[in-house]
Each structure stands twice: as C-alpha cells, then as structure tokens.
C-alpha cells in the first residue's frame, strides 16, 4: 500500500485569521487515480486543495498546521515554486494569459520560470500538451492567436494543457467545470478520465454526479472535516456515515 500513495496529508488544518476552515484532514492520494472531494459550498474543500500546492498561504492572514507529504517529503520544507511546478492547478474560471498566444500560453510555465527550451522541444511540448487536453485539432491552425478568443470550454482546456505542459506529478482541479456549459463540461470530464494514465488527479467539486462519473475515490467533506472517504461506487451506493447519505440524497448542500 505504501508505494501506491503519491501525496498524503497529515492532520492538515488551514485558517483565515482565526477561522479554521480545514480541520485535521488526513487524506491519501494514490498514483494514477482520480480522487474527488465533494461537499457543499463553504465546506473548506477549495481551501484544502489550495494547501496542497501552497497557494493558500499567499493570502494575507492565513495559517496552516500539519504536513503534506509529496512522495515522502513535506512540501512545507520545499521551495513553493518547486512544489507548484510538481503539483499543477486548474481553477474554477478559465484564466489563460490575455497577452500571450495559445502557443505561449501552453509554454507559460517555462517562460515564466525562465527555463530555456529549444524550438523542437517547444513545438513538441505544445503539441503533446494540447493533444492530451483534447484541444490540438481545434487550435492547431491558430496557435499564434490570442488564447482569449477561444470559447470558455476551450479556454479551460488550454489551462489544462498549460498545467500538463509542466509534466506535473499531480493535477489539482478546483471545480474546473462549474463555469462551463454542459457540453464543455462533458468534454472536460471525459478528459479527466483519460488523464489519470499520466498524472494523479485531485478534483474538487460540488457536483455529486460529476464525482460519481469521473472519480475512483470520493471523499465527502463537511464543515472542514473529511466525513467519509472510499471507492466511488461504494460511497454512492452504500455510504457508511449518515451525513454522507443525507448529502447524497440531497437533504442539504
């Protein structure tokens, strides 16, 4: 079991000021699986996921306790830029860089980090990343146009390609489809199930059906705590905790 875990949180708590919104969470992320964290708005799931790549601490007045082990190393002992390079993130709203072309958006991580690549390497990374994000066929003839001209769903896939281009070990998806139309959402869900062959995925969603459709494991988070976690089919058919059942049957959230 030990070797199957890529990322593990140990008693992880996070706060804004003195308001602890994530309380002693222990969660293990396995290699090449999709783990979904579902829960009602305000349950702390977004804050939790933002701790995993050290984005939470960027806001003034925030606090973190506990550990996050990435292949056995505590990420709070590593430089934040290294952690974020290895753990990519896609946000709720598509946020391609408006000043950059599609091509440069995919390479943005390298450009921003000042990592030099040869022309051939750049072309290769752009093509494979866009293919992995199911976007290549739609944009291969307009790579040097601005990314902001794409539709919302295309922009989000561009952001996924941008994260994949860094070849991360883990991809954090923070409600990646909640700002998209149903068709774009279906495409991204399909994409997520394909991506786990190369990257481990943590998906935060308040959409129960989405968690059921795409994830291997599901965790239910409520009031800052993980109420229950298990293989997705079991969670949705035979939840152990009454609160999970209430949430799944739509009694709240």
């Amino acid at each position, binding site marked *: 079991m030990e070797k199957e875990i890529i990322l593990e949180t140990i008693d992880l708590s996070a706060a804004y000021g003195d308001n602890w919104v994530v309380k002693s969470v222990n969660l293990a992320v396995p290699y090449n699986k999709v783990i979904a964290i579902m829960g009602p708005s305000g349950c702390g799931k977004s804050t939790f996921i933002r701790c995993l790549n050290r*984005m939470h601490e960027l806001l*003034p007045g925030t606090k973190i306790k506990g550990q996050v082990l990435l292949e056995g190393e505590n990420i709070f002992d590593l430089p934040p830029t290294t952690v974020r390079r290895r753990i990519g993130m896609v946000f709720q709203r598509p*946020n391609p*860089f*408006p*000043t950059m072309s599609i091509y440069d958006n995919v390479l*943005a*991580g390298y*450009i921003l980090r000042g990592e030099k690549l040869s022309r051939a390497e750049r072309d290769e990374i752009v093509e494979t990343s866009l293919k992995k994000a199911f976007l290549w066929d739609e944009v291969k003839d307009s790579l040097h146009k601005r990314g902001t001209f794409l539709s919302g769903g295309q922009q989000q896939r561009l952001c996924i390609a*941008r994260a994949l281009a860094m070849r991360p070990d883990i991809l954090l998806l923070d409600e990646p489809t909640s700002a998209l139309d149903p068709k774009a959402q279906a495409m991204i869900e399909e994409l997520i199930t394909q991506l786990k062959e190369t990257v481990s995925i943590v998906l935060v969603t308040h959409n129960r059906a989405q968690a059921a459709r795409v994830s291997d494991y599901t965790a239910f988070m409520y009031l800052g705590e993980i109420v229950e976690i298990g293989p997705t089919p079991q969670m949705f058919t035979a939840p152990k905790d009454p609160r999970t059942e209430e949430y799944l049957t739509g009694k709240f959230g």
Partner: protein
Amino acid sequence: MSTRARRIKDRIFKATILSLSLLTLLPLLLILITIISKGYSAISLDFFTKLPTPPGDPGGGILNSIVGSLLLIAIAVVISVPTGVGLGLYLSETRGPWASLVEILINTLQGIPSIVVGILAYLWIVKPLGGFSALSGGVALAIIMLPTVARATQETLIRLPTSLKEAGLSLGASYTRTIWKVILPSAMPGILSGVLLGVARIAGETAPLLFTAFGNPYLNLNPLKPVDAVPLLVFNYAMSPYSDWHQKAWGASLVLMVFILGINITIRKGPWKRR
C-alpha cells in the same frame, strides 16, 4: 399622475439636460474657434522647420520650441514612468499604514501648484548646476506627471483579476517574474493611457518652466542647457509688443491644442485596446 403630465415632465427634463450640456460646451467651442481662426494663418511648413526671426522680419518658425518641448517631455517620461509605475505597483500590491501614507502623499503632490514644483526644481537642480537647463524643466514636469502615472497604474492593476496572478504562481513562477511577465504586460493598455494623459497634462505647462527650462531662441538638444517650449513661447510672444509675434503665439497655441487633442483621441481610440 397622468401619462400626459409625465410626458411633459420628461420633455422638460430632457430639454434642461440638453441646454446645460450645450452651455458647458459653449466656452470650449469658443476657445477652439478663436484659436483656430487666429492661429490658422500662422501655420505653414516653415512654422515647424525654421527658427524664429527677430520681430519685424517675416517668415521663421518655432522649431526651437517644438524640439525643446519634445526634449522636456522625453526627460519627464523617462523619469516619471519607471517611478510612477513602481509606485502604482507598490500601492496595488501592499496594504498598511505605510502604503496609505504614500497614497496620501501622491494625492497631495497632484494638488501642489505647478509653479511651486518649478521653484523646487530651481532650488534642487538649477542652483547646484549653476544654470537653467532642459534637465531641470524635465524634472519639474516629471514631478507634475508622476501622480497621474502612479494612479493610472494602481487603478489598472487593482482591476486585474487575481486569477491571473494565481495562474502564474500556480505554474511555479516566482512572484517577481509573475509581476514582470504576467501582471505588468496585462496592465500595459491602462498604464500607456496614464502616461499619455500625463503627457497631455504637462505639454501645456508654462509656470514650472519659467525658471528651469527658461526658454531659448536657438535650437538646443543639450539637456544641461536651456531650451524653449511651446507654451513658454506662447507666453513670451504674447507678452511682447510685436503684432507678428502675437500672430505666432496664436499659431503655437493651435499646434499645442492639436497635439493635446491628438493625445486624447489616441487614449480614447487607442489601437492597443483589446475587445
């Protein structure tokens, strides 16, 4: 209230608004018409390419003041853009007592009479260097322009979505590189508008140049020597007793007005504007 009464009220209100806006437009139109009609006859190719002639001699132009104004503006831009953008960035990124103090100081600077800024530039630069210079005039104009650039930068940066900065940081970029490569380029249209607004503001300044740039009837490109400026020329020529100089002052006013109008149109219709 009946529909009829409401319609009459509506019409009265519309008429009031229209007449009030025409009333505010009237002085502006009068200024434009006067400057164009009086300055039009002075404009010729020579006016832009020749140096002034002594009073009474026909011909001649204001090349010295146009070049001087451009030099002064260039110096002011070189000084005020890096400092103004830096200040704006600082104010948008930081909160706290120190930042609000800086903000108050910038707002105060905006209200200082330009003649006072000229006196300060005289004390700080003209006296130590032992003479009037384009540099001292440029510094005075830079101080006047600084708050405009700083405020424009700050306001543009505050309006940028935080998701942009998060996107940069989440890719493993450092804070500094995210600012340089993502935030500032995204804010460029707003910053450029601010710089142009600042240039339009200083292009017509006369008072701070009186004892800094001083004026110069000859062509000069040396920043350590006095230069002329278009508004200075207007001032000097208008004060003179010669009617042909009065004519040239009107022409120079027209040039200045068209320049400032052009900048304002560029800001409005800026080719760099997206969407």
